[in-house]
């Protein structure tokens, strides 16, 4: 009887050892699409990130995930930012010490976008990386509402526009409010990602473009966890785009259920309607809401979701 139990234990231990051994060898390869861009190719890009997250969620301890970026021909910073966020913020990667390796795009233009936006601040590279000093604020991440960095962004804008800081006050409000939203609304213990914000800004001849990402729950998921009305709307099948547009218009309550809170998004939407800001969009969950030239919100729903909330806008120089 005892020998039988010992044999069983031995077989079980051997199975566990073998499975760990095998999984260490197994490389999970993730091939990025030719156009990796939330802006230009949202459906395929979101589907790719769904694959990334699903794969990581299934990868065991010490497993290896390989990011094959070699096929990329077109890439935009929004997607690179989200790629960094998945690598740095998915809790399972740190907890289970999942190893993430990868290669670079063969296309030189695409490779340059990776280099210039600051991707290599977040990953170790075995290849020589050009230390480009472009007209941009490289992808920067943080956790708190950081007034020093918000001030740096305003200084960057003033420098490139010959403006005084009086003209960037609304931008400062917007950045601080977005950072505050990350700390206040965006975090849930059950979320697969740690909550951080990421910012990128780039100067061009006619405008300065901004991308802001927070890796928290995202607007639709935050709303779903709120009150009865929102739960009813949710069960009635109201889609994510309606949730995001309602949150922008200030038609839904704050996640904190305190009436004096939750004014951030409507305030930002109002700023987005000013003549200085164009191409303002919010992507969260399965939805993208874009403010058009008539200040109307144009809603789009996607098959796959973006975990967190990404905002982008252009600040016109004229």
């Amino acid at each position, binding site marked *: 009887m005892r020998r039988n139990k010992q044999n069983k234990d031995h077989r079980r231990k051997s199975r566990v050892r073998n499975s760990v051994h095998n999984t260490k060898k197994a490389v999970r390869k993730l091939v990025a699409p030719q156009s990796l861009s939330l802006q230009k190719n949202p459906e395929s890009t979101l589907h790719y990130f769904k694959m990334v997250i699903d794969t990581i969620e299934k990868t065991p301890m010490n497993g290896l995930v390989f990011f094959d970026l070699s096929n990329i021909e077109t890439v935009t910073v929004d997607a690179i930012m989200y790629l960094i966020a998945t690598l740095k913020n998915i809790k399972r990667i740190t907890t289970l010490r999942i190893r993430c390796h990868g290669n670079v795009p063969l296309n030189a233009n695409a490779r340059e976008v990776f280099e210039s936006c600051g991707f290599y601040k977040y990953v170790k590279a075995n290849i020589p990386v050009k230390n480009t000093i472009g007209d941009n604020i490289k992808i920067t991440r943080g956790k708190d509402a950081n*007034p020093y960095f918000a001030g740096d962004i305003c200084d960057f804008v003033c420098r490139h526009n010959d403006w005084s800081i009086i003209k960037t006050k609304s931008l400062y409000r917007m950045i601080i409010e977005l950072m505050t939203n990350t700390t206040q609304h965006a975090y849930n213990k059950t979320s697969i990602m740690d909550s951080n914000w990421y910012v990128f800004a780039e100067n061009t001849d006619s405008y300065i473009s901004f991308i802001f990402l927070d890796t928290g729950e995202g607007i639709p998921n935050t709303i779903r966890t709120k009150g009865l009305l929102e739960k009813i709307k949710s069960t009635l099948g109201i889609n994510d785009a309606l949730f995001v547009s309602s949150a922008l218009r200030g038609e839904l309550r704050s996640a904190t259920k305190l009436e004096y809170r939750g004014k951030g998004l409507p305030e930002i939407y109002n700023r987005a309607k000013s003549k200085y800001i164009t191409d303002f969009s919010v992507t969260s969950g399965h939805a993208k809401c874009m403010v058009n030239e008539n200040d109307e919100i144009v809603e789009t729903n996607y098959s796959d979701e973006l975990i967190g909330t990404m905002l982008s806008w252009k600040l016109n120089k004229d």
Partner: protein
Amino acid sequence: MEKTIVVSKDYTDKPGGRYIVEGPFSGEDFRIKMLLPKFEEAVKDDSKLVIVLDGGYGYAPSFLEEAFGGLIRETKNKRAKEIITIISDEEPKLIEDIDRYLSDAIGKL
């Protein structure tokens, strides 16, 4: 005698978010360290408190709401609007915003 706070000189030119736990120079921190003591002095002396918002990088709504709305929630003082005067030449809309934060908080007392 009238009391004055020039936020950009007396506190910071880079105000932050709402709560202390969210980072430096929050509305809560400003209220505790600067606004509340000066407000209480003004109440005690039966004088006015002038707050100058000009000169800094800007103010997030959450900072202002927590500072001024929070002042009402903490002191329960319904006369706060008579005591406080806001000067904001660079962003006049902030005067309206703060007035609304004060009124909303007073309305909920």
